[in-house]
């Protein structure tokens, strides 16, 4: 079995589930003939035909709203927003409808859909192509927000997201779309939603992260290991609802925690995790929880974006600060 990238794993999961379930339909801008601007839907039009792979007109509120209508009829739309920065026009449908339809109708109507979108900075793209505003969705009751950060997890989590009977926002980190390759058996095995993945065990400190930052964090953990600091690395993966249990268990063990995300710090998802740690685990914390995040600025244009993003270096610095904390 050959190794594939994250974006190929997305494609493989889509193909698997379209084959397995006639209700799965794809829609979005440039996803059919063009196979998606990142090629994540390449070949699917040819394989499943124009009734299953739909190029839409250019309108994001429409993509969101039409998907919801389809979902209420029992289809399982997987809609692509071309970039996360163009999803905001769909916010009203996501916040006011997708997340509420089951609750509003007391279970009569449901909304089993997936909104996929490339997200995150680091690919030298134009403005609005570097958003990581996952916190906006993580605040909304009724949604799931899932972020894969490896080919294996992209495959397993996307299958789980499509099969989930509720709406899932599925954020695909563009910077790792083609960064790593893994063997991903095409066996239709989903991975669990609502669960963190412990990517590396360690006893000295817990590093909590997701998305693009997983690789910087693993890199930092590797370098820390050379200094004999054993970092546990947790990929949160589902940021809504949060699996605090796994995070708490780890921090209870290590007593120290650094949270890493690329989004702006203020009111990012890191704040919620830090707040819960401080609330539920105050006594086990040997040092304050630190956050290594993007600045509270607009993501700079390409030339400066690398200075905006957290790096392994900054993570290591924070870990050292936390480890040397003297109460």
């Amino acid at each position, binding site marked *: 079995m050959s190794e594939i990238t994250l974006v190929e794993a997305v494609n493989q999961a889509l193909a698997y589930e379209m084959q397995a379930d006639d209700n799965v*339909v794809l829609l979005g801008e440039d996803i059919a003939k063009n196979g998606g601007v990142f090629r994540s839907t390449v070949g699917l039009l040819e394989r499943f035909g124009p*009734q*299953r792979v739909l190029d*839409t*007109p250019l*309108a994001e*509120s*429409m993509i*969101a*709203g*039409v*998907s*919801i*209508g*389809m*979902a*209420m*009829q*029992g*289809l399982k*739309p997987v809609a692509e927003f071309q970039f996360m920065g163009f999803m905001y026009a769909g916010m*009203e*449908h996501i916040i*006011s*409808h997708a997340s509420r339809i*089951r*609750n*509003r*109708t*007391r*279970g*009569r*109507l*449901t909304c089993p859909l997936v909104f996929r979108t490339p997200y995150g900075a680091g690919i030298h793209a134009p403005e609005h192509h570097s958003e990581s505003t996952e916190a906006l969705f993580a605040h909304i*009751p*009724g949604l*799931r927000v899932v972020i894969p950060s490896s080919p294996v997890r992209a495959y397993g989590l996307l299958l789980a997201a499509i099969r*989930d*009977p*509720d709406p899932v926002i599925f954020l695909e980190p563009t910077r790792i779309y083609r960064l790593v390759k893994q063997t991903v058996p095409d066996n239709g095995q989903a991975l669990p939603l*609502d669960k963190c993945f412990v990517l590396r065990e360690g006893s000295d400190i817990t590093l909590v992260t997701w998305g693009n930052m997983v690789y910087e964090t693993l890199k930092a953990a590797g370098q820390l290991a050379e200094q004999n600091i054993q970092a546990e690395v947790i990929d949160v993966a589902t940021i809504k*609802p*949060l*699996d*605090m*249990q796994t995070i708490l268990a780890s921090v209870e063990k290590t007593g120290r925690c650094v949270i890493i995300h690329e989004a702006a710090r203020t009111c990012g998802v890191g704040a919620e995790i830090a707040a819960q740690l401080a609330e539920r685990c105050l006594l086990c914390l040997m040092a304050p929880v630190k956050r290594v995040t993007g600045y509270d600025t607009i993501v700079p244009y390409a030339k400066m974006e690398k200075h905006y993003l957290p790096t392994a270096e900054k993570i290591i610095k924070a870990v050292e600060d936390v480890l040397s904390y003297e109460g």
Partner: protein
Amino acid sequence: MTIVAKFEIPYLRFLDSEGKINKPLPHFAKNSRDLISLYRTMVLTRTFDAKAINLQRTGKLGTYPSSLGQEAISTAIGAAMQPNDVFCPAYREYAAQLQRGVTMAEILAYWSGDERGNQFAANPEDLPIYVPLATQCLHAAGIASAFKLRNQPRVVIVVCGDGATSRGDFYEAINLAGVWQLPIVFVVNNNQWAISVPRTAQTNAATLAQKAIAGGFAGEQVDGNDVIAVKYALDNAIAKARAGSGPSLIEAITYRLCDHTTADDAKRYWDPQTVEQAWQEEPIKRLRQYLIKNKHWDETQEAHLQVECNQQIEQAVTEYMNLPPAKLTDMFDYLYASLPAIYLEQRREVEI
């Protein structure tokens, strides 16, 4: 100059405000039973509306938007649809909802602030009332897309107000319906007002029907106070959609003879003379006049109908008033198909 495209907006009316026929009636309208049925629905709706306002005034209901004066549109919709079509209402479409199995008790529960009012025991697929205006247009387009992708001969009817036509969602739905040739009928209840903003301040378009031109399909105006015209236009549009020949838009011209909702005071912005005139045009009177003139209806039947309506409504009110309070845990129990673990702590707080 070369002309590359031409468009026309037709206007349709059979029954004028005096109940006189000004054009040969369509086939269905020659059957007095059908007309009487439409008439009864309109009267029932108006009576229900009055009762609901009364409940609100006496503290037994929340804010309520009446459909006074606009009953013909929704009555025709309910009559024109097949049961397995899907209805995507605006919030003044009680007449259609009632015909489609939504109960008065459910409608009242909804406006009392109870989600169970959207549970529609006898109607599995219609949308509940949507508050964010025009958003239902896109969901309707999605439902119509599902019908089309599955080759089902089903049709979606979606209603919005004149105000709602200014929203991008309305247009995006129109545009998609056109280019995907969806089995959908857009009905605009043009009641001349969006709360205090008159139709003329919403758009410079001479008709709202012409907004369909932007989507590349036909729009027409009908007299929304002539239930025969609305029904006729709908029958055609639905047949066209069902045959796979694409969407239509019907602008039904009527007048909001009531405050926007019970929380509004239209006197602040209304011209009373216009309203008085609008009352001359209202839909029930003209159909009654026609029926009576043609001996399909009389005062005795009218009196009976009132009694029947009142009985039915009283029963519904009793049912509504007797609805046991919902469980507080319902707040959590319909959020997801199964509640994620992290919610359990919060849920326990409201358990009793």
